[in-house]
């Protein structure tokens, strides 16, 4: 199977502080990878590097074999990497449908946006997405009026509208009720059938729901261990990192 993402000897330092330290990571296309790790492990920086928000100090990031160094964020997004932020970031003053339509737009330069109109394929994509995320009844409501969980689903829908190959999802379950968490989990699982996904998560219950493949544990900017959920849970190093040193 081909590798969708390869990261080699990646170090990111901010004024000498190494947020990521000589990290090696790779994942196959089609995989749903969950990344866990205690606070400050470098999870968000990890996503920042992939999406071009932060440049690597040393090392490189390959997406489908292409080095992402010095490519601006919007071009990386067009290459096929979509990112969902920790707090839902949707356009509050636009309706749900308009939110999706903006992202769906095939040609994203100034003049085609100005003169172009949504074609039927795009309209159909939007309609399909509204159904997938379960917001078709609220399509004409301002996103401002949605509940937190609905906003999370809308943002995931916007990601999918970009038709990316790789979805990066940062703590999708943060601040959700149990029921909403399960909805989002189911949504991610159904998306995993056609996309590669990296999900960063704290909520172990949620990780257990979605982690069918490999789980990666980050600690202090490096890779601590990798394996299935049950392997990882049994790993003494992981227990130590999460719970402190085991008593002798």
């Amino acid at each position, binding site marked *: 199977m081909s590798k969708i993402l390869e990261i080699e000897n990646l170090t990111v330092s901010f004024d000498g502080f190494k947020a990521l330290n000589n990290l090696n990571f790779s994942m196959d296309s089609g995989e749903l990878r969950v990344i866990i790790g205690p606070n400050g492990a470098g999870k968000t920086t990890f996503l920042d590097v992939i999406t071009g928000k932060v440049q690597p100090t040393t090392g490189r990031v390959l997406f489908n074999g292409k080095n992402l160094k010095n490519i601006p964020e*919007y071009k990386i997004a067009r290459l096929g990497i*979509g990112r969902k932020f920790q707090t839902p970031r949707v356009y*509050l003053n636009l309706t749900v449908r308009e939110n999706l339509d*903006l*992202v769906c737009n095939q040609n994203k330069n*100034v003049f085609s946006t*100005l003169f172009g109109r*949504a074609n039927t394929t795009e309209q159909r994509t939007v309609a399909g997405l509204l159904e997938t995320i379960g917001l078709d009844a609220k399509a004409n*409501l301002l996103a401002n*009026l949605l509940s937190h969980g609905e906003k999370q689903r809308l943002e995931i829908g916007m990601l999918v509208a970009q038709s990316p190959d790789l979805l990066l999802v940062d703590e999708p379950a943060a601040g959700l009720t149990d029921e909403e968490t399960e909805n989002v989990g189911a949504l991610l699982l159904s998306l995993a059938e056609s996309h590669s996904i990296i999900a960063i998560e704290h909520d172990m219950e949620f990780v257990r729901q979605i982690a069918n493949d490999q789980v990666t544990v980050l600690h202090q900017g490096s890779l601590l261990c990798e394996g299935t959920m049950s392997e990882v849970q049994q790993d003494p190093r992981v227990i130590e990192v999460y719970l402190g040193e085991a008593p002798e």
Partner: protein
Amino acid sequence: MINETGVQIKRRKQRNRIIELAIIFASIIVLAIILPSVIPAFRLRLVGRFLSLAIVALGLDLIWGYTGLLSLGHGVFFALGGYALAMHLNLQLPEGEIPSFFTLYGVKELPWVWQPFYSFPVTVLAIFIIPGIMAGLLGYLVFRNRIKGVYFSILTQAALLVFYNFFNGQQEIINGTNGLKTDTEQIFGLLVSSPSVQRTFYILTVVLLILIYLLCRWLTSGRFGRLLKAIRDDETRVRFSGYDPTGYKVFVFAISGAIAGVAGALYTVQTGIINPSIMQVAFSIEMVIWVAVGGRGTLIGAIIGTLLVRLAQTFLSESFPEIWLFFQGALFLIVVTVLPDGIVGWWRDYAWLKLRSLFGRKPSLATYPSLAEDPEVDQERDRLSSK
């Protein structure tokens, strides 16, 4: 924000469009036909100047209200347009002569920057293209480096000061502090200050105001307009959606600059003179006040705000010249503290709803829909009734 089905929305939009067209049509009749015949010529000239200022307010609203970029330097673009037209008017001379002020500074040859302004078509283009390019250039340098928010505002104000000092200092080129007079010059063989020419400029101002309003309407509706709002509300998200915000911001800023140039030209010929004082910091800030008073992000608000503030200024400073500045300060404080969305915002979010309920109409829900108006229930109801 009641829940509506697609058909209802379409119907409402259609109705609003008809109302809007009717209002535009009515204001053309009032401004262009009725007003010139009822008020004296010097008052009309005043109204013409206010309407030119409303044009620059439209441009400012485009970038501040919709795109979230507060420019404190629109005086530059305004002045560039004004100077372009004034230079053309100052060149309506017999063969071989140059404008008389040049002799004061011992200039014998017409400076090269003046040469293109012999031609009327070039001047017309220069009125909006030069400020547009200047704005685009400034915008490109600023936005490419991701400077935004208050830093952007400060930079535009700094640019304004640079231009102000430059124009003040360049006596040999554009007559420095004295500026250029237009009233005593000629256009197509007629004196600029003559009533018929002034009347023509007034009508032209009304027409251009409407056209530029429609241009801004077109820009702010549709995908492009929604993207501007998206940039205003969350630029990072826009970038991660695959859009490059820089191009959009440069484009909108250039358009806004070009609009300011047109406004400046119209304002100059209806004032009679242009000089660098038009680039004083206070004037550019006043433009911002007009937009804030009328309501950011509502184009009609920019026009209403300008006219209201300027009319109030005229009447108050005629009767009580000493209190106008206090009044202006108070007005700004009131808007900032009590009416953050300006007059139009207050009308839309409060007064209109109050009025409706006085006439027994059901208030539109602005909250999360209650169970009675649950969209799922609505949808089901629609589906059942269509069967």
